[in-house]
């Protein structure tokens, strides 16, 4: 998720929280008759008058369309990131651009990691996350694996990935998970 989506979630939640607290406290105060300035009845005449204005359907239409579009965009922003497309490589200049499809390169690096002892499988992609360009490798390891060896293999793969893509702003994150079931070894009678 991008930083903008997280910020939007936080700001919207904050605003809704303040509204909920305000309405809740006002409702209790109204019933307890704590403030003399509170009306005896809720008067929504002004709001009802607006609904009968000739321009109301247009205003509601525009506001509704904006709300639907913003809501959809906001919802889609929560879909897990599928990764960036092409990355511009070092050496690009006025004479021409060097580009590489980023995620297939990360996927190839993941396959190298998957070949390390104790790693059952791995996948990789390059994505923008929290303001960083991240090569994320996800590996499933055996529960009895040698973590030192896996960390070394991850370092080696991260070094090769850096050399292939040659981007100074690219960072790496290797997320390891253990296999939930022990792999059944072939039996020898």
């Amino acid at each position, binding site marked *: 998720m991008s930083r903008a989506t997280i910020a939007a979630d936080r700001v919207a939640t904050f605003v809704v929280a303040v509204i909920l*607290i305000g309405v*809740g406290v006002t409702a209790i105060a109204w019933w*307890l008759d704590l403030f003399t300035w509170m009306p005896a009845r809720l008067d929504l005449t002004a709001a009802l008058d607006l609904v009968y204005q000739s321009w109301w359907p247009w205003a*509601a239409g525009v*506001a509704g369309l*904006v709300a639907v579009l913003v809501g959809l965009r906001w919802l889609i922003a*929560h879909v897990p990131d599928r990764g960036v497309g092409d990355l511009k490589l070092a050496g690009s200049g006025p004479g021409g651009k060097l580009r590489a499809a980023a995620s297939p390169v990360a996927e190839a690096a993941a396959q190298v990691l998957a070949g390390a002892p104790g790693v059952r499988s791995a996948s990789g992609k390059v994505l923008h996350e929290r303001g960083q360009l991240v090569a994320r490798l996800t590996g499933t390891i055996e529960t009895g694996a040698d973590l030192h060896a896996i960390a070394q293999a991850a*370092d080696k793969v991260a070094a090769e990935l*850096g050399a292939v893509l040659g981007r100074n702003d690219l960072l790496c*994150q290797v997320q390891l998970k253990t296999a939930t079931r022990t792999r059944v070894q072939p039996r020898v009678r």
Partner: protein
Amino acid sequence: MTTIAQPTGDAQPGAGARLEPLAAAKAPVGPGKITAVGVVLALGLLSLGVIALHDALIPSGLVAGPSWIDSGLTTLHGSEPAPWMVPSGLLMATVGVWALVTALRPRPSTAIALTARTGVYLRPRDVARIARTATENVDGVTSATANATRRTVTVSVRAIAPGQIAADVQQAVAHALDALAAAPRIRVRVTPERGPR
């Protein structure tokens, strides 16, 4: 004596040059409750938009029926204080306070770093599984369960002869997890295995 010429150009993978791994990205964080709340609010905004569009299309005849906004306002118009407002108000305020805390709380850190030059991480539940496997391989342990937080690993074992088991388990778990960047606190609980009746 034979010498092998090393490439003088840019370092290539496998060319014999020692390459520097990519620097570590920010440690992974869990989605947290704020993500779920964000999805609910996005759906809420979408619903408000649909209500407004519905009402906007009534004059054109494309949509039949009464205006939803008008109906809602008419229902609320003229309301008077009622006893149900106390529990409802309390509920709204409570949900509001919870949402306020959720909005401000950082997302949960779910990562336990390994000692590596790039960023390599495990989740607490994986550390627990590794600790359990290491424990199960200790002589005398009949069964084991493990839980882990970011700083503490707790292993519960059943053992035939509990005497030395706790120290052996402690050592085995510490060895299995010695690649973690910060050594966790390891707690071992031993329950004697009941013999055959």
